[in-house]
């Protein structure tokens, strides 16, 4: 198990290195002058000179790369064009909000999705199952801004139940902060849950179907363990494995959903910041946002993989597999 963790962490590090290297290459190798991505229209020649030195733009590519990695190791992500502040300082407080939103949505998605998937697997081919299938197709077909707009229109505008946007009201008392944040989170969370639910249900359902076919489940049923016990006790633990694995792989997509959702709901996270950075052509901020998001996703994927390892005894014995 220990060596599995070591391997997995090494792989995560490698993935992160690949992600930042891609960013480095994209910015440097794009057609046109790569330096323009870092030079804002409002910079003076002195600013540009200072930037050239700090990024090594006048040096050969490998040296620039080394410099880039060194800056990264010191958490130096550059200077935002618009805010004229270090990118890290702008992103740091926003990252928490994004993780809060994604984490909550993920938790709710799993809490709804897994039982729904199990239920639909148990009643395969029946009305419930078909309704779930239809929901899955619709779920992965939704355009987030539209869904968000409809939600706001109905719940905020017509019914007046939820706030339109933001994370909390500006003049809220500290003691009411948590409930206020919760109120603001409802619609963005619902949006993300709706678009991500389909995947979880789909995977739980199909892995549950596979597990239910396996011998030991039949044996357990034959032994007279009651159906409920078989499903929730034996089968679910095994069915969870692909579900958790796919959760890890979904994180990247959840981030994509978060960019659009946060934008529509003015959620003060990294996603809405990306939208602003696009508008303002703030490339250092965009690059920083990507690096931070990539890091978060890789870290969370690592965690889900470790959860899978914990759920799946086979991985602990991973080393001994023959060809």
């Amino acid at each position, binding site marked *: 198990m220990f*060596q599995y963790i*070591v*391997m997995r962490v090494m792989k995560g590090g490698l993935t992160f290195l690949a992600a930042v290297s891609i960013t480095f290459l994209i910015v440097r190798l794009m057609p046109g002058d790569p330096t323009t991505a870092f030079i804002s229209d409002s910079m003076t020649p002195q600013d540009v000179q200072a930037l050239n030195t700090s990024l090594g733009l006048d040096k050969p590519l490998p040296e620039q790369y080394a410099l880039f990695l060194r800056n990264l190791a010191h958490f130096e992500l550059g200077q935002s064009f618009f805010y004229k502040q270090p990118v890290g300082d702008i992103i740091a407080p926003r990252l928490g909000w994004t993780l809060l939103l994604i984490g909550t949505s993920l938790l709710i998605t799993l809490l709804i999705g897994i039982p729904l998937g199990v239920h639909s697997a148990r009643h395969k081919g029946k009305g419930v199952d078909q309704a779930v299938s239809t929901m899955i197709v619709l779920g992965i077909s939704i355009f987030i801004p539209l869904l968000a707009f409809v939600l706001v229109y109905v719940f905020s505008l017509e019914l007046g139940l939820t706030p339109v946007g933001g994370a909390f009201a500006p003049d809220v008392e500290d003691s009411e902060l948590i409930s206020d944040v919760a109120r603001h989170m409802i619609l963005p969370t619902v949006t993300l849950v709706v678009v991500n639910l389909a995947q979880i249900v789909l995977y739980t359902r199909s892995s549950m179907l596979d597990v239910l076919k396996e011998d030991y489940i039949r044996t357990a049923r034959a032994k007279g363990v009651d159906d409920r016990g078989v499903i929730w006790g034996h089968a679910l633990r095994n069915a969870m494995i692909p579900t958790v694995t796919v959760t890890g792989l979904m994180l990247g997509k959840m981030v994509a959903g978060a960019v659009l959702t946060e934008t529509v709901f003015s959620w003060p996270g990294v996603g809405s910041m990306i939208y602003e950075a696009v508008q303002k052509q703030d490339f250092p901020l965009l690059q920083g946002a990507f690096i931070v998001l990539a890091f978060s996703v890789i870290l969370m994927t690592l965690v889900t993989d470790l959860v899978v390892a914990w759920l799946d005894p086979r991985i602990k014995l*991973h*080393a001994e597999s*023959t*060809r």
Partner: protein
Amino acid sequence: MSALLEIRGLKKYFGLKRHLFQRRTRFVHALDGIDLDLMEGETLGVVGESGSGKSTLGRTIVRLEEPSAGSIRYLGRDVSALRGADAQAFRARIQMVFQDPYASLNPRLSVGHALAEPMLVHRKVAGRRAARQAVGALLGQVGLRPEMASSYPFAFSGGQRQRIGIARALALEPKILICDEAVSALDVSVQSQILNLFNQLKKALGLTYLFITHDLSVVRYVSDRVMVMYLGQVVELAPRDAFFARRLHPYTRALISAAPLVSTAPREARIILQGEIPNAIDPPSGCRFHTRCPNVMDACRRVEPQLREIEAGHHVRCHLYAAGQ
């Protein structure tokens, strides 16, 4: 009769996946020093339990596996040294018939396509029309109708599919046919039809067979010589009649007694082998069979016996038949 194929000291080890903190790679000894001459025109039956290495032997000969050590010579030329066009030519000389008639045909290729493709690749025929004719002839040869060429594998029964598999192997006009459990997946009634087909083809085309099977009755029916393998080694090799009459090695005896229908000898006590075939990663010391042998002796545990010719053409690997006994 001359040796078409000479195998000397053939070894095949499979490396186990090594994990992070393990120093040494460990190996499965699938073939551990095989010496064998395959004579032109003969049918050599290879028997053994699963895990004995008999399938690996066949797969190594057709180069599905690269040997770890030793040599395979075809008509005196070292096969492993062949490259490019020579290797292609060798491919054509030795073909294989697979066990599972369902899995050995590509479900997405029509029968005609599957048969024509190798001929076109090896330029046995010029152009599609000639290929179509050749396919028709091949199908006829294995007892199928030429118009079946346009059908896909799913339309055929198991026996028919095996005939197609044989036809495909024959497409390149090989000298040697390796049959790896070629009939064991078929119904008994179909088995004999296919075995008869093999015998007919042998006569008509002058083929040489290496017939790998666990089924002694099949071996008895088709073979000229019989070879028994245990844990990657040859333990007995003899002409068919001598083999069934004398069965020198204790393992051979156990095998035959476990298949009573094959035995023509008077009823004798069935020899039940103790335990399972040992792990081929760390084979037992001395005689590999000593852990299960009813006749085990002290020497068996320490000294590895050699394959010896006890009488003309009858080789056996056992301390019971040590020199001077």
